[in-house]
């Protein structure tokens, strides 16, 4: 199980959902699929056609920039962060 930390602006879209989630998945893509099973609709907010992460969404696995194909080790800490876009 990885520990996934979700941004406040994302969980605000899903009332009652905690920022910290324990999620199974050996890649970021698999992890987001599992997260979507826990919180229906969440993957849609993070992933666009491609499939790929939306342009202003960043994912870090144990502190390293990641994409959907990035491997997620057991017990990894995964941060989902919206980019500081705009002025």
């Amino acid at each position, binding site marked *: 199980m990885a520990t996934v930390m979700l941004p406040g*602006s994302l969980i605000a879209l899903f009332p009652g959902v905690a920022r910290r989630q324990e999620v199974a998945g050996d890649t970021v893509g698999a992890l987001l699929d599992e997260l979507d099973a826990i919180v229906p*609709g969440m993957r849609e*907010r*993070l992933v666009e*056609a491609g499939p790929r992460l939306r342009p202003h*969404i960043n994912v870090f696995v144990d502190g390293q920039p990641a994409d959907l194909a990035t491997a997620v080790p057991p017990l990894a800490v995964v941060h989902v962060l*919206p980019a500081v876009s705009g002025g």
Partner: protein
Amino acid sequence: MTTRVRLLVGTKKGAFILESDATRRDWSLRGPLCEGWPVHDLIVEPSSGAILAGAGNPWYGPAVWRSEDGGTSWTHSSAGMTYGDGAEPVKTVWSLSATPDGGLLAGVEPAGLFRSDDRGATWRHVEGLTNHPTRPTWGPGAGGLILHTIVPHPTDTDRTWVGISAVGVFETRDGGVSWEPRNVGVRAEFNPENRFPETGQCVHKFAMAAGQPDTLYQRNHCGVYRSDDGSASWQEISDGLPTDFGFAMVTHPRDADTCWVIPLSLPEQGRYMPDGHTAVWRTHDRGATWIRSDDGLPTRDAYMSVLRESMARDTLDPVGITFGTETGQLWHSSDEGVSWRMITDTLPEIWAVEAVVLDD
């Protein structure tokens, strides 16, 4: 029975809801709603009374928001709102419409149409429009390549019109399987080598006349038009208006001969009130003549702009008209556009206004 009027306002920074009694003098305001997402369109689903908001967030993508408790709590979905993994992603929802058979339609950027038959929980691509042979030639207007107007026929479920900038009007008569351009008679002045192409017109907004499904009024980048034959052809009715340009247009809920427009200065001249003089223009004779209305509006130094979805009318008698500006002001007339009062001047940039009458 108590009558209330509700204004649904979409802005660059969330949705807002204003309410008044039937006098429409004093308004309460709630918001920002939809978590501050940019909201391009708001409608009420006739079968349920639910409020729907078409939106797109720079981080989290497109969504149709839904509230079944008058805007207190919301859900959202864009499930199925995709052209496929090999295609350009959908960025935002620009327009919403309920169909007479209980479905929902959403127009999006890049331009295309999606339908939901489960109240917005899931969406499916109306591929017939995207597959139109002219699709490779479609080009964006200043606001992007957007499907911004959807007008279902009130009784014929196979028949729907859509407006795409800068492509023109299309109509389907077979439930979305096939589509035909409907732009005959509409000028494209920005294309001097072919001012009347099959597609490439910059439609800004169009609306159906009350009780006359074959009568449509169109606000275009280049003039104002009326069709009396269900969009097969358009006649220009711009004579008497101060400029060729503008975005907003609404039709009367009971009088097929009446509609309102807000002309703006030309794009290269700023897209604001001509000469800084705010005015709403109306016709009561199908566009043969136009009446300028500025009673209560600022008539000097008013460099405001009103976008395509930012004017609405209610269904009371007399009809109330409301418009919102890019600078966050909301103006209202409770006498069919004769005189005006400002409701608020402190909202974010207004992108959409819808008016709803509630009888409790």
